[in-house]
């Protein structure tokens, strides 16, 4: 349960950040995994290197001795450990955000198809680069990052504390993105999604908006990567394959685009399928590899949801701005409650008219 909830938190941060991009601004980011991986690697290398530098340890980066020594240090210095946790999370936010901002320069000037291709290739490139990059342990990755709450002896308590802090971060990100999309900025984002040229003609700087959104969303995925590293304690380039991007996309599509609550619900659905596959793994007579089955289900789920319920489980809601209130009930996109209220008031007016008609003597 605890492990599920930590994975759920990490993935819901990713889903919320993807929702900011595709749901609200219409940037088809197929390279989510690159920013996730950047965040993870920044956090891991910052954590390990800072410990090694502060204590002037000359251990090799990748080895059993290093892991043991780091664990001892972390258990002895709670304050330093927590500081490293929060500093590396903020650092990975900034670095992943900067990467997200930089990738916009060549790609946002072309259409969504080229953007998708380029960012997808960027994700693959990142993985290949990390596989050959020596300072982060090349193909084997980095190991031995101590748990942020390593000084607590009780292991359940330790993971519970981790889940609570991750949930706190998720709540911050959720409320931030909720505030963002309900602000005038969010409405500008939606206008860009609906019609770029119209937004341009209204004086919105489309490119700058897209770049800023990519900065924020990539930063959030970097935070998710950092949390993953602190949760598992190790990181390797092979964790960040293209399939992870599919997973996040499936979450957003199943839950409902342009609805943050929907993104979280979609995360719950997909992580539940993931857990189910993990349980199936223990059944020896099961004919197929459950992992393969899980991915096939994810693929079919994407297609089926797009075909039969394109708005997802929780569809997008209308924003209740003051302007909307004054315009009144003109559009089809009103909630059922609003519709019921409109029906009641319509019936009431009709009754009054009928009464008037009778009063006037049926003329």
């Amino acid at each position, binding site marked *: 349960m605890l492990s599920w909830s930590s994975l759920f938190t990490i993935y819901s941060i990713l889903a919320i950040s993807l929702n900011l991009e*595709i749901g609200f601004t*219409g940037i*088809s980011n*197929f390279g989510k995994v690159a920013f996730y991986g950047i965040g993870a690697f920044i956090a891991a290398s910052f954590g390990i290197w800072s410990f090694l530098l502060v204590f002037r340890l000359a251990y090799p980066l990748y080895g059993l001795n290093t892991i043991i020594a780091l664990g001892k240090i972390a258990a002895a210095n709670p304050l330093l450990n927590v500081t490293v946790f929060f500093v590396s999370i903020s650092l990975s936010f900034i670095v992943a955000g900067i990467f997200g901002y930089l990738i916009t320069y*060549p*790609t*946002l*000037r*072309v*259409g*969504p*198809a*080229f*953007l*998708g*291709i*380029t960012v*997808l*290739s*960027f994700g*693959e*490139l990142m993985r*290949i*680069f990390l*596989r*050959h990059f020596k300072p982060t342990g090349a193909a084997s990755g980095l190991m031995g990052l101590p748990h942020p709450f390593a000084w607590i002896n009780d292991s359940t308590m330790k993971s519970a504390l981790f889940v609570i802090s991750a949930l706190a971060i998720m709540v911050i990100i959720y409320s931030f993105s909720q505030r963002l999309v309900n602000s005038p900025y969010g409405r500008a984002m939606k206008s860009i999604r609906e019609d*770029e*040229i119209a937004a*341009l003609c209204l004086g919105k700087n*489309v*490119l700058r908006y897209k770049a800023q959104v990519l900065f924020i969303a990539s930063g959030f995925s970097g935070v998710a990567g950092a949390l993953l590293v602190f949760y598992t304690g190790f990181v390797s380039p092979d964790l960040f394959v*293209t*399939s992870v991007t*599919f997973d996040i*996309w*499936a979450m957003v*599509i199943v839950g409902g685009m342009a609805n943050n609550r929907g993104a979280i619900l979609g995360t719950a659905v997909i992580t539940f399928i993931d857990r189910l596959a993990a349980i199936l793994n223990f059944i020896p007579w099961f*004919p*197929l*590899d459950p992992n*393969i*089955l899980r*991915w*096939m289900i*994810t*693929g*079919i*789920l*994407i*297609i089926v949801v*797009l*075909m039969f319920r*394109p708005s997802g489980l929780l569809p997008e809601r209308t924003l209740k701005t003051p302007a909307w209130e004054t315009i009144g009930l003109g559009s089809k996109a009103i909630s059922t409650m609003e519709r019921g209220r409109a029906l009641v008031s319509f019936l009431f007016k009709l009754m009054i008219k009928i009464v008037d008609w009778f009063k006037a003597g049926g003329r």
Partner: protein
Amino acid sequence: MIAELLNTLWVSSIYSLMSVPLTLSYRVTKIINFAHISFITYGAYVAVIFSLLLPLGLIETSLIVFLVVAVLAVLNHMLVLSPLMSRGTNVVTLMIASMGSWIFLKYLLYALVSSAQKVLRVDLFYVTPNIAIPSTIIIGEFRVSTFLLISNAMNIMTLLFLYVFLMKVKLGRAMRAVADNAGLAQITGISKNAVLNATWILTGGIAALGGLAWSLSYYASPELGDNVILQVFACSVIGGLSSIPLTFAGAFVIAFAENILIAWLHTYLGLDVSFRPFISFLTLLLVILIRPPAGGGGGLPYRFKLPFRGDKKRSTS
């Protein structure tokens, strides 16, 4: 030097076989089809499995591979893309749907291959098709790989066929008409559905031939398509996702960069050979920066500033 040049030719022919159909399908249907990656992998595996079951020569294998994967591509169109298109969904949604079918097909292949491995009791990961061909032949003083000749011959024959088909045959000309303006083409009586089906047959078949060429030269694995994503997309972007000759040229450029340029950089600048994919990615970025495909991918062409400079009107398409 000659060996490197030959290697470049070899790789470029395979990349060309893989990326020309991507350009073709995008030009006609306006969909970035990520399931294309799966078509390549399926091409390799259909060859591997059929050549194990039946004693086949090269030509029969190519025909079977072409047909099977063409059927797969048409099925993908009929079951996934066409229902969505008839509902009037936008480009991004179609891209996501094709991504869904990519992931489904990829893991379906994993399931099929692992069960075939159990049934046939043969190792099916990292293998080449079981076709009896001598690996090298001697031409004059040189010992040349047969697979180089085969993949080049496949590539040249495909390109010639595409040229004749698109320029002379009625269906091919209809295809070009649909690619330029689908609405106008339908007004003149062209059946869009038939054209789309023909496009998917060609796309799936040629991409599968690319996979076959790759598996003959190197090996087949379920990750084959995923390993060449970057290169294939880079080739197609060099072609602007619209021009088949330019895509062919792009395949040559990418192969050149990956074989000869990296060797030069290695000797003169001490760059590690494993940084090969970077060159492809840099080429892709450079092409997008220098020669952005205007309005490409259905987006806003950010070259819109050009027509307003001066009175002379310039079209952005």
